[in-house]
C-alpha cells in the first residue's frame, strides 16, 4: 500500500521538478541569453505568392475588421490571396465575406462549407484543398485577429529559409481592459510568447505553431499529409508532424498581432478544455514517434518535444500529486519534508502551458509593462481554474477514448461591438 502510493507520488514530483527546471531555464535564457530572430529584418525580397486562410463560423462581429486589416497589408496585392472559409455560419458571416468578394474581386475568394466535418481543422483542410494551389505559403488567422500592415511580410520572411516548414507570430490581447480575466490572460500570453516561445526559438528547440498568426509551407503541409480534420488542435498536430518529417518550426517575437481574448470565465473554461483535449490527442499520437527520434531530430529536441506535448497533462498530474500526498498523510505514512517542499514549490511555479509566475514576470519586464505586473498574485485564480478545467477535460477524454475526439465548432465567444475603436485605425 505504502509503495503503491509513494511510487506514483515520486513520479509526479519528478515530472513537476522537470517542468520547474524547464521554466527557470527558459526564463533565464530570455533574460540573459542571445535573442535569436534571424528573419525579422528581411524587409525587401521577391515576395512569393501567399494564401491567407481565415476559418470562420458565426463571426459577423469581427470578420469585417479582419478582412479590412488584410486588405491594408503592405504585401504585393497580386501575390496575396485572401480566403475566408465560412463554415456553415448561421449569422451574417457568409453575406459579409461575399460582399467583400464583390467589392474586392480577385483579392478575396470566399469558400462556403455546407457539409463535411465541422470545425476549424476540417475547414482548413477543405480550404487548403480548394484554394491556394498556386501559393507556396499558406498563412492562417482566426477571424477576431487584427494583423498590422507589415505582418504578412514578416510571417513570410522565414520561408526563404528552405528548412522552415512553419512559422508562428506573437499574439497580443486587444481587449485587456475589459475584466480581471482579460488582464490575467494578457499576462499569461506575455509569459507564453515573450518567454516560452522565444526561449525555444533561441535554443533551437520546438517553438509551437499556434494555429493563427502563422502559417505553413504548402509543400511541407502536403508532404506530411495536409491538415488533419480529426483533431481539435490542428496546430499542435501539424507542428509535430512537420518536426518529425525534418522541417523546422520558427517563432517570430516581433511579428505581433492583436486578438480578442475571452472576457468571461465560461468562455475561458471552454477554450482551455478544447485546448487540453486537442493537445492530449497530439500527446497520444506523437510521443512514441518522437521518442524513436527520427533522422535529423536532435536529442534535446526530443526532450523539449515530449515536455511540450505533456503540458496539458501537468494539471491532472498535479492534482494527482496533491491527492496522493493527502492520502499518505491520512494513512499515517510519513514522507520526507523535502519531497513535500518540492511538491509545494512545483505547485506554485509549474503549470505547464500557462507559463509560470516567473515567466510572466520576466515577460512583462521584457515588454516594459511593469504596472500590469502588480496583478501577478491574481494569476493563481486563473491557474486553479485552468488545472480543474484541464483535468476534467482530460478525464472526460479518457472516458471517451481520447483518440476519437469530437468534431464540431467550439468557438470562443466574441465581444467586439460594432464601431468599436481599434488600435492603429481611425474610425
Amino acid at each position: 500500500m505504502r509503495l503503491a502510493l509513494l511510487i506514483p507520488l515520486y513520479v509526479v514530483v519528478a515530472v513537476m521538478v522537470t517542468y520547474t527546471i524547464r521554466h527557470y531555464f527558459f526564463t533565464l535564457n530570455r533574460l540573459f541569453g542571445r535573442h535569436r530572430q534571424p528573419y525579422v529584418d528581411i524587409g525587401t525580397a521577391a515576395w512569393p505568392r501567399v494564401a491567407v486562410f481565415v476559418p470562420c463560423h458565426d463571426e459577423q462581429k469581427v470578420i469585417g475588421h479582419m478582412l479590412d486589416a488584410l486588405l491594408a497589408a503592405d504585401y504585393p496585392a497580386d501575390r496575396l490571396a485572401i480566403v475566408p472559409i465560412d463554415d456553415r455560419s448561421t449569422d451574417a458571416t457568409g453575406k459579409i465575406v461575399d460582399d467583400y468578394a464583390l467589392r474586392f474581386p480577385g483579392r478575396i475568394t470566399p469558400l462556403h462549407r455546407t457539409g463535411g466535418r465541422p470545425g476549424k481543422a476540417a475547414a482548413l483542410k477543405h480550404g487548403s484543398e480548394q484554394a491556394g494551389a498556386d501559393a507556396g505559403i499558406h498563412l492562417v488567422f482566426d477571424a477576431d485577429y487584427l494583423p498590422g500592415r507589415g505582418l504578412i511580410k514578416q510571417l513570410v520572411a522565414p520561408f526563404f529559409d528552405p528548412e522552415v516548414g512553419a512559422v508562428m507570430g506573437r499574439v497580443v490581447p486587444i481587449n485587456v481592459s475589459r475584466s480581471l480575466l482579460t488582464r490575467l490572460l494578457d499576462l499569461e500570453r506575455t509569459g507564453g510568447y515573450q518567454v516560452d516561445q522565444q526561449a525555444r526559438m533561441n535554443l533551437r528547440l520546438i517553438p509551437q505553431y499556434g494555429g493563427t498568426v502563422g502559417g505553413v509551407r504548402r509543400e511541407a503541409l502536403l508532404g506530411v499529409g495536409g491538415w488533419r480534420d480529426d483533431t481539435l488542435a490542428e496546430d499542435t498536430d501539424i507542428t509535430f508532424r512537420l518536426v518529425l518529417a525534418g522541417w523546422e518550426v520558427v517563432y517570430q517575437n516581433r511579428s505581433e498581432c492583436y486578438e480578442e481574448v475571452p472576457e468571461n470565465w465560461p468562455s475561458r473554461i471552454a477554450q482551455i478544455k478544447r485546448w487540453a483535449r486537442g493537445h492530449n490527442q497530439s500527446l497520444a499520437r506523437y510521443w512514441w514517434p518522437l521518442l524513436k527520434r527520427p533522422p535529423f531530430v536532435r536529442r534535446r529536441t526530443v526532450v523539449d518535444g515530449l515536455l511540450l506535448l505533456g503540458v496539458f497533462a501537468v494539471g491532472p498530474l498535479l492534482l494527482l500529486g496533491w491527492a496522493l500526498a493527502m492520502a499518505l498523510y491520512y494513512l499515517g505514512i510519513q514522507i520526507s519534508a523535502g519531497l513535500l517542499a518540492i511538491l509545494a514549490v512545483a505547485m506554485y511555479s509549474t503549470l505547464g502551458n500557462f507559463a509560470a509566475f516567473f515567466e510572466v514576470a520576466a515577460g512583462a519586464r521584457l515588454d516594459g509593462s511593469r504596472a500590469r505586473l502588480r496583478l501577478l498574485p491574481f494569476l493563481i485564480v486563473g491557474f486553479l481554474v485552468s488545472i480543474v478545467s484541464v483535468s476534467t477535460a482530460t478525464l472526460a477524454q479518457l472516458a471517451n477514448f481520447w483518440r476519437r475526439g469530437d468534431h464540431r465548432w467550439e468557438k470562443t465567444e466574441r465581444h467586439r461591438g460594432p464601431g468599436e475603436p481599434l488600435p492603429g485605425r481611425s474610425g
Partner: protein
Amino acid sequence: MLPFLGLLALATAWFLLPLVPALRELARPTDIAPLKVVDRSSGYVAYFARNFRRYLEKQTAALPQEQQVGDFFGRLPDGTQLVRVHKAADALEREGAHGAENRLVVVDTPLTLKGGETFLMEVYARSPLTGGPDAVYRAVYAEQELVLGEGSTVLRWAHAGGRLSVGPRSVLRGRISSDAGVMLGGGTVFERIGAPVISVGEPSEPPPAPPAEPRALKLPPEAKRVGSHFRIDGDFDVPEGVRVTTSLVVAGRLRIGLGAIVLGSVKAHRAVQLAGEAQVRGAVVTRTRLVVGAGAWIGGPAIAEERVSLGRGAVVGGPDLPATVSAPEVELAGGATVYGQIIAPNGARTAGG
C-alpha cells in the same frame, strides 16, 4: 474573544499586505491598454524619413502664405525654429550658422556646404545638396541628389529621392535610404541601408547566365529528400563548376566551389562559403557566418546569424530581384553590391578608406 479577533485581523492584514499593489491595480487600473507593439516602428528603412516629411509638410502648410516661400528665419507653428534658404546660398553663413546649427534647415536651392558644420536639427533639401567633409547631421531629407562629404556623420537617418553618395570614412547611424541608389565610400560604417541599389563604389551587375549549362551534380546517397530540398548530415562541398538543381540544407559547413551554380536556396547550420563567381539563385541562410567570394552572386536574401562578408564585386539580388542582406555584422569589399537593403544591427563596414 477580543484577543482572537485581534489576532485574526492581524493575520488577515499580514496575509493581504503583499496583495496591496495587486488590489490597488485592480481597483484603480494604471496599465490596461493593449501592448503598443503591433506595427510599432515598421522595418521599413525610410520610415522615420517619410514621417518627417509628412510632419514638415503639415507644419509649413500652416505657416502664413507670405512665409511659405523665399528666405525665412522664424518658427514653425509648433514652435520649432526654422531657417529656409531660398536664393542666397550663403544665407546659413550670414545667419551665423558656424559650428552647431540648432534650427531646422530647409534648403530650396542647390547648395554646396563648406564642411565641418553640425546640424542639431533635421536638414530638408528640395534641391540637390552637397555636404562638405566632416559635417555632422542629426537627419537629412533630400528630395533630389544628396552627397555626404568625407568623414560625415549621420546620427538618426538620411534619405534621398535621388542618388545618395557617401564619402569615405563616414559614420551612418540609424536608417539610410534612397529612392534611386546609395554609393558608399571606403571605410564607411553603417547599420541599416535600403535602396534599389547599394554599392561600395560603382555598382556591379548580377552575372549573365553561363554560356554553357554546367554539368549537374549527383548528390551523395545519404542526402535525404525533404520536400523540394535535400538534407545532408555533416559538412558538404559543392565542387567547382557544377550545377545543383535543388535546394540544399546542410547540417554542418557548406562550401560552394568556384563557378558552381545552385538553382535553389541553401542553408547550413554552420558556415557557408561561396567561392569566386559561384551562384546561388535563391536564398542563403546560415546559423553562423557567410563568406561570399569575389564576383559571386546570391539571387535571394542572404541571412547569417553572426556575420556576412561580401567579397569584391559580389552581388546580392538584382535590378528586378530585390533582396536583403541581414546579419549582426556585415563587411563589404569594393564593388560589392546589394539590390535592396542591408541590415546590420551591430554595424556594417566597407573596406578601404
